[in-house]
């Protein structure tokens, strides 16, 4: 029996690879297993290699997508070629025997999936459900749950299709039972406890967080991998008397988001790199006019159109520096699906509290990853409201009053006597255009003061593993889970390793980072991009030699990669290695 199992399904886009995995995931998650999924699919609609992977545990939260699959399901030759290197002695390999023959595999399960679908079910599209039956048999998945999910998935398609799919499921299940020996070693243990969990994707968690934070307006333009935020909100926000509009482009989206927020609704937009680039000018306007907005950027592989369905952590620079001139903003990156929920709430809280744009940085792998997470306790979540000006007494509102913390009183259109002009021009405290040299400098200082407070906000940094020792790892966003898993394993091996995960990336948490780096002999910064953007950003504020470790392939790190790096640094030893060497070469 297995406490943990990793299932990977690979095939051609359109063969049902993703839905096979999704149904299995849902069924297991609803039966109190912990799950963690990872998917990659072609940028084209049909054709091209698609892959879905789910790591299932009976032992509590799953930290990362994991490494080599225990159960590998391959629909065609291309999928086989893509995955051959992952096959080990103890891999159970399900494949369509009419598509290809594998070279070697310890437990080969040749099943004529396509043939069964065509001939026995009478619907070639059910191939993936036949396969789902086979997988369920091997894992001992809760069949009632699987059937329940199948039924609801096809509910709108009519009874006939439901029956066909249920038949496909049973047929696959039976085929394995009848044609292969029982393999109890692949069966999943029962989950260890019943928990109050929910199973959501990163994007869903962001949506939930936004609604909980009080977001009632969203404007967006479709783009992979952020579109499903717009789709989700389109369905749900109207039930909260909210507004969701697909605009003509991202420029209109952020303009409208700013307009709606100015008029008093907590507002957001969500996009990916290309759309975020187009929002550059308006980020500056939001900052200058001091309008709270939340901009979600679900990063994908760049530059330009790049690899639209692949993951990357390469928009940090744009999030921090993207605008002409200098206008403060806050950049937040959640570290896992649960954190997507809480950081979405925090993004709105920070935006409202400091009256500025907040960027919430996720990426394809995190946005589209499904994880089992503890159900949030709503009563324990605090939500910040904009500080409204009161007692105007007929005097003009000093909307941009210079205050100690840079935050000024605000009115909303419709508020009696609160009239002011929100403007992108430099202005005096009342909002009137002002080009006086001293006032410009004062207003710049006023706006940037907000960041001095924001950088002291609690709970924007997480730390795991050793608190001091040999190797300290600083990482961000979707990479955090992999690092945590590697750190645990390294500690189990007796290596002294700890990790710091800043979730507020800008303003830079210099104090916490300085503190952390002073406790370790070597500092490793792994990230999914080419130039080492977090490492570079840290260097602007903290004088420290960092070992930048980048991977720029459109796919996440694996725990083994990080672990290997940890071991390598450990073996190099402390004395033979001068920090300077790394520092000098890290960015070359």
């Amino acid at each position, binding site marked *: 029996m297995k406490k943990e199992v990793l299932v990977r399904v690979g095939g051609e886009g359109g063969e049902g690879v993703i839905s096979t995995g999704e149904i299995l995931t849902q069924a297991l998650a609803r039966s109190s297993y912990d799950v963690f999924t990872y998917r990659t699919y072609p940028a084209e609609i049909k054709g091209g290699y698609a892959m879905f992977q789910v790591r299932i545990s009976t032992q509590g939260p799953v930290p990362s997508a994991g490494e080599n699959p225990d159960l590998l399901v391959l629909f065609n030759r291309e999928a086989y070629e893509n995955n051959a290197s992952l096959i080990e002695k103890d891999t159970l390999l399900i494949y369509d025997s009419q598509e290809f023959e594998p070279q070697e595999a310890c437990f080969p399960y040749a099943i004529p999936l396509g043939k069964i679908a065509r001939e026995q079910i009478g619907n070639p599209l059910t191939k993936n459900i036949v396969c789902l039956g086979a997988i369920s048999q091997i894992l001992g998945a809760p069949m009632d749950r699987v059937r329940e999910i199948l039924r609801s998935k096809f509910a709108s398609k009519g009874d006939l299709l439901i029956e066909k799919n249920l038949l496909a499921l049973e047929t696959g299940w039976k085929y394995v039972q009848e044609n292969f020996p029982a393999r109890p070693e692949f069966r999943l243990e029962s989950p260890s406890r019943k928990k109050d969990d929910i199973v959501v994707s990163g994007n869903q968690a962001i949506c939930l967080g936004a609604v909980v934070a009080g977001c009632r307006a969203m404007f967006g333009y479709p783009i992979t991998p952020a579109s499903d935020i717009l789709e989700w909100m389109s369905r749900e926000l109207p039930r909260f008397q909210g507004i969701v509009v697909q*605009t003509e482009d991202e420029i209109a989206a952020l303009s*409208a988001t700013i307009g709606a927020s100015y008029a008093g609704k907590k507002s957001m937009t969500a996009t990916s790199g290309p759309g975020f680039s187009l929002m550059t000018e308006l980020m500056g306007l939001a900052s200058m006019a001091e309008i709270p907005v939340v901009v979600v950027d679900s990063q994908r592989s760049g530059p330009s159109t790049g690899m639209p369905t692949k993951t990357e952590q390469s928009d940090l620079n744009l999030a921090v520096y993207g605008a002409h001139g200098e206008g403060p903003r806050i950049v937040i990156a959640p570290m896992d699906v649960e954190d997507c929920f809480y950081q979405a709430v925090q993004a709105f809280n920070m935006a409202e509290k400091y009256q500025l744009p907040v960027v919430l940085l996720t990426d394809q792998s995190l946005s589209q990853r499904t994880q089992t997470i503890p159900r949030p306790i709503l009563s324990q979540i605090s939500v910040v409201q904009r500080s409204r000006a009161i007692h105007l007494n007929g005097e003009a509102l000093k909307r941009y009053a210079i205050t100690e913390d840079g935050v000024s009183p605000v009115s909303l259109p419709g508020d009696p006597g609160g009239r002011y002009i929100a403007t992108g021009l430099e202005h005096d405290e009342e909002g009137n255009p002002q080009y006086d040299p001293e006032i410009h400098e004062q207003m710049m200082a006023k706006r940037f003061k907000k960041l001095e407070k924001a950088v002291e906000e609690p709970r924007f940094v997480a730390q795991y593993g050793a608190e001091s020792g040999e190797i300290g790892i600083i990482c961000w966003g979707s990479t955090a889970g992999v690092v945590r898993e590697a750190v645990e394993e390294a500690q189990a091996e007796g290596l002294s390793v700890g990790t710091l995960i800043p979730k507020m990336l800008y303003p830079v948490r210099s104090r916490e980072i300085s503190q952390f780096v002073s406790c370790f002999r070597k500092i490793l910064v792994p990230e999914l991009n080419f130039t080492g953007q977090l490492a570079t950003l840290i260097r602007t504020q903290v004088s420290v030699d960092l070992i930048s470790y980048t991977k720029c392939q459109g796919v996440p790190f694996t725990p083994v990669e990080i672990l290997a790096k940890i071991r390598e640094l450990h073996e190099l030893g402390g004395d033979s290695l001068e920090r300077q060497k790394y520092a000098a070469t890290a960015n070359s």
Partner: protein
Amino acid sequence: MQPQRTANDYKSDLKPVWCPGCGDFGVLKGVYEAMLNLQLDPDKVAIVSGIGCSGRLPYFTKCYSFHSVHGRSLPTAMGIKLANPELTVLAAGGDGDGFAIGGGHIPHVARKNIDITYIVMDNEIYGLTKGQVAPTSPLSQSYSTAPFGNLESGIDPVALVLSYGATYVARGFSGDPGMLAELIQKGIEHKGFSFIHVLSPCPTFNKVVTFKSIRAKTQAVHGHDPTDLRKALDLALDSNAIHLGVFYQMEKKSYNDRWQEVWDQASQKPGNLEDLLQRYA
């Protein structure tokens, strides 16, 4: 009861920065007058503008205002109107702001029929940046960026916006603020997207388009049925004269009306945070 409002209730303390003789003074007058005639509460009005000489208009009113960036007045105004349907929302700007950099937004607010009154001050030139060719500039005329004569035909804003499906389309002239006030007033009263094209000279940079030249070329629409779209298009395409007045007006559900329907429908299954979470349990 609120006492009768006076013109001063709409004027801010800022002195307009326009050049003497600028057409935009007339437009500002028209805006004041329309608000006064309608006795609007300035605290319930939001005026949004883009960048340009014309884009300074909101500063001179006592309304809630938003001076957005170049070309973005319409989507900003849309956000405001959706977030607070109680507000009267106006957008204002120049020909460049509206039809060059911001031109991509008009079809989409028009087809939404969102209840915004959009006033474009057309001087056939870029005023604030000192005299470059504009999308409404005529073919062959010379400008600082078209020294060999403009190589492009000017667009016809009225025809364009009619073809976008706007439900109120009118043309005014800043030399006739009274008529303009009426057109704006009607636009504000109209429930849906209202577009008012205003011929508004820039005496500083456009020496060709003057109050006089406009007077010579324009005539008020007469005996025109503003519910007939094709006739409206004919009028717009008329090569003999430039017509002033209401080209087209049509009743159609506004975007906010349609949103109200959505909210009504959605409220049959009103949103609940715990239920939402439960769905993923």
